[in-house]
């Protein structure tokens, strides 16, 4: 098998997918991943098709990069090898929606936006609001673990994914978890795939728990003279029984990008969702706390669109010169983390950053960073964060900065078991080889 020619491989892959759909040559090469051109682009329409493609890839030890709608395809280390770009976008069916069970089964190529259309009439939703929802598939959100401001109340994909089907690197189709919302039957395999960047298998079907949409949601923005003042108010709110659906600290740079006029030093933006009476009562409590710090509420009209803007505000606008990082820290340390970034790479007032006051997760984008400085900026941010036990993952960097850049940071003593896990589940190194943590 190992001596198959490129032609043989092309033929086998072509047979694995619907006739005439395999892209080769220049047509494949146009679909670059972080500047690397694939030899083939396969877009199967069935789980069996995915399985066949991976069976070929596994036997030929090809390097496969799975992709959904592609919004986060550049995350991770650029591929060293790229034989097959495996697109899941045509696996986009809703398999089962059980409104009375608050559960949903989908193929993984379905986008968040498409699901919203299905679920909204039932007053239910998948409570994830990451950037670029139209270009975010469920499979992609599983692979990247990407989440948005709703994580303050609803958590992340980890908290929603109750079961899945995965195609392993050799084409074997396996399932993990189940379809019910409470389940401890065997190891919780679905969690292994959340945030794994497709390195342990290609997720093809997902079973999700849904949440009821609150009867009403309202959002407010509170301006503060400084990020410290905004954080202090946020932590005071968090120390009450008020339930925030979203709670984001926004920097002046983020507010400017969002078009908030005459932006203050920083702002706290919140969403509260509940019965109208309860939204009003809690909104008043938040306003009282922020009011004591001298801030007055501005209610956000058309809040869903505004929040999409918040999630997008740290998305790289100028891919050639911008650096976007995701930082994990304690909520009380978020402002320290912001200052650490400002200190090394962003003039005060220009940093586009949002910080989740419930989970301590920051997204920050530095504009106009010279490629040759990126490695140093990231290293210095990590250095400052290490005193806070914080983490820093590069989501986007100027392409010229990528070679040799440590995108992920150090996972500590967990790296060894992670490497062993990869070797166990993908011994031939077929799936996204070299793109993940620690060279996995």
């Amino acid at each position, binding site marked *: 098998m190992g001596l198959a020619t490129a032609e043989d491989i092309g033929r086998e892959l072509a047979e694995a997918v619907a006739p005439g759909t395999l892209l080769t040559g220049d047509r494949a090469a146009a679909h670059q991943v972080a500047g690397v051109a694939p030899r083939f682009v396969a877009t199967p329409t069935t789980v069996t098709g995915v399985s066949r493609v991976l069976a070929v890839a596994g036997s030929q030890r090809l390097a496969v990069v799975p992709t959904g709608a592609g919004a986060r395809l550049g995350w991770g280390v650029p591929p060293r090898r790229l034989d097959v770009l495996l697109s899941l976008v045509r696996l986009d069916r809703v398999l089962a929606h059980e409104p009375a069970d608050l559960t949903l089964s989908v193929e993984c190529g379905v986008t968040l936006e498409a699901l919203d259309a299905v679920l909204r009439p039932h007053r239910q939703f998948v409570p994830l609001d990451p950037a670029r929802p139209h270009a975010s598939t469920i499979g992609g959100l599983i692979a990247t673990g990407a989440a948005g401001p709703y994580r303050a109340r609803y958590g992340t994909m980890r908290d929603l994914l109750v079961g899945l089907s995965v195609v392993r690197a050799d084409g074997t189709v396996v399932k993990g978890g189940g379809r019910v919302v409470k389940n401890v039957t065997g190891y919780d395999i679905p969690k292994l795939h959340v945030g794994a960047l497709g390195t342990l298998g290609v997720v093809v079907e997902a079973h999700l728990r849904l949440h009821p949409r609150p009867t009403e949601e309202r959002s407010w923005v509170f301006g503060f003279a400084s990020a410290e003042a905004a954080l202090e108010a946020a932590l005071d709110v968090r120390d009450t029984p008020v339930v925030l659906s979203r709670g984001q600290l926004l920097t002046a740079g983020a507010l400017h990008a969002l078009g908030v006029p005459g932006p203050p030093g920083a702002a706290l933006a919140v969403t509260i969702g509940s019965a109208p009476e309860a939204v009003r009562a809690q909104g008043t409590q938040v306003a009282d706390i922020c009011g004591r710090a001298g801030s007055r509420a501005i209610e956000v009209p058309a809040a869903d669109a505004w929040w999409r803007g918040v999630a997008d505000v740290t998305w790289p606008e100028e891919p050639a010169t911008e650096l976007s990082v995701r930082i994990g820290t*304690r909520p009380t340390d978020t402002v320290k983390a912001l200052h650490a970034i400002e200190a090394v790479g962003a003039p005060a007032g220009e940093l586009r950053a949002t910080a989740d006051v419930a989970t301590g997760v920051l997204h920050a984008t530095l504009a106009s960073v010279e490629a040759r400085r990126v490695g140093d900026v990231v290293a210095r941010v990590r250095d400052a964060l290490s005193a806070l036990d914080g983490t820093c993952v590069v989501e986007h960097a100027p392409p010229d900065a990528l070679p040799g850049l440590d995108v992920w940071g150090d996972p500590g003593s967990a790296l060894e078991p992670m490497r062993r896990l990869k070797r166990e589940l993908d011994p031939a190194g077929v799936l996204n080889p070299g793109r993940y943590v620690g060279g996995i």
Partner: protein
Amino acid sequence: MDHRLLDALREIVGPDGIVAAADQRLVYECDMLVYYKGMPDLVVLPRSSAEVLAVVRRCLEAGVPIVPRGSGTGLIGGATAPKGGVMIGVNRMDAILEVDLRNRYAVVEPGVINLALTRAVQDRGYFFAPDPSSQMVSSIGGNAATNAGGPHALKYGNVVHHVLGLEMVMGTGEVVTLGGAVAERPGYDLVGVAVGSEGTLGVITKVVVKLTRAAEAVRTAVATFDSIEVASAAVSRIIAEGIVPAALEAMDEPIIRAVEAGVHAGYPTEAKAVLLIELDGPAAEVEVQAEAVARICHDTGSLTMRVARDDAERALLWKGRKEAAGAVGRITHNYVLQDAVVPRSKLPTVMAQIQTIAARHGLVVANVFHAGDGNLHPMICYDERVPGEFRRALDANEEILHACIELGGTITGEHGVGLDKAEELALLFSPDDLEVMHAVRRVFDPRGLMNPQKVFPSGQHACAPVSTGAGKPVPEGMWV
């Protein structure tokens, strides 16, 4: 037990950390599922992670099985030593190491009792959300190992949703730190797979847990119905309406009788079924939801509805629920306990099927369960002194499991697999599916010495269940 190993372990944990005498080891031969017995050759009670690591390394050198144990309140034969070896009891590692309320987490040693953590933070308005009914005695290490649930898992989730990080001594003889207080650590979610791995990957030596802010308002009510099917229909409708209560528990007539005979929780004994419904959240939200729940129960055919007027009454209603399983000892000599799950919309169907199955085997089934998330606990009553009844109970148990799987459910929602359901795992997972779990096992425990014979099907029952002899077949204070 090889005396050199014994000496080495005594050296590590000290003489007061060794339980060697057979009569003292007796208490360690089973957990709360007394059908399965497996006495360890030795029990060690380390006081620190370093001691656990040293013990594990010695045991690996000697090639003997290692069985971690918390408080031993499990219901799956998980903390037993069917192949002998060394049991590591973590009870003396019971320090709360750090509490950070502003960041809503705590770091605890594995032997900390679940409720002790809540007690340490509740006066400041916080709690540790997972509340298995055993919470006054079960350990957080054990809760994490089994991914325990509890009534409030409906709103707050099982333990995995509340564990941010772990320190674990792996079956490789190394210590690893997984996750932590800070989110977004790079790499695989190994916390997610270690929680619920039932001691088959390693010994948990530290747990970073999420703390939850207590709700502004709590309202607890009991609604009565003239059948468990109708009560189940009300549950399905509440969920379908988009209301996810904090807890939504169902009890049927045999349970009500058993509870009222002992605890006097104030459940109306004339009722054929009761729902214990708890709403929590912002006061105005609870108000609105309480009205909706009352309307749904009424429209579905509830007979009465009573709202607890104060904390004392609320506590009493919960006392009845939490002690229901233990109370069943008053109405039956023995029982087989189930932990299956069905989709919530299938509750009325499965309740009817359970009654049919029980009737066919001439047995009584008592039901006390986490109705809101479809997690059933049918208790199949039998009398081991009557020839053939135990066999019939096991057959009925098997049929109920199959019925739940048919309806799209699973075999365990919160108790775990252990010895008890290891073979049944193969009902849900193909050999290919199971191979992925084996691969995970090999990563952490390549020699298969960590809690052997648990979780994974062997193709044959590792250790046949034996109905216990005389004595107390239903342990006092058993919790589901």
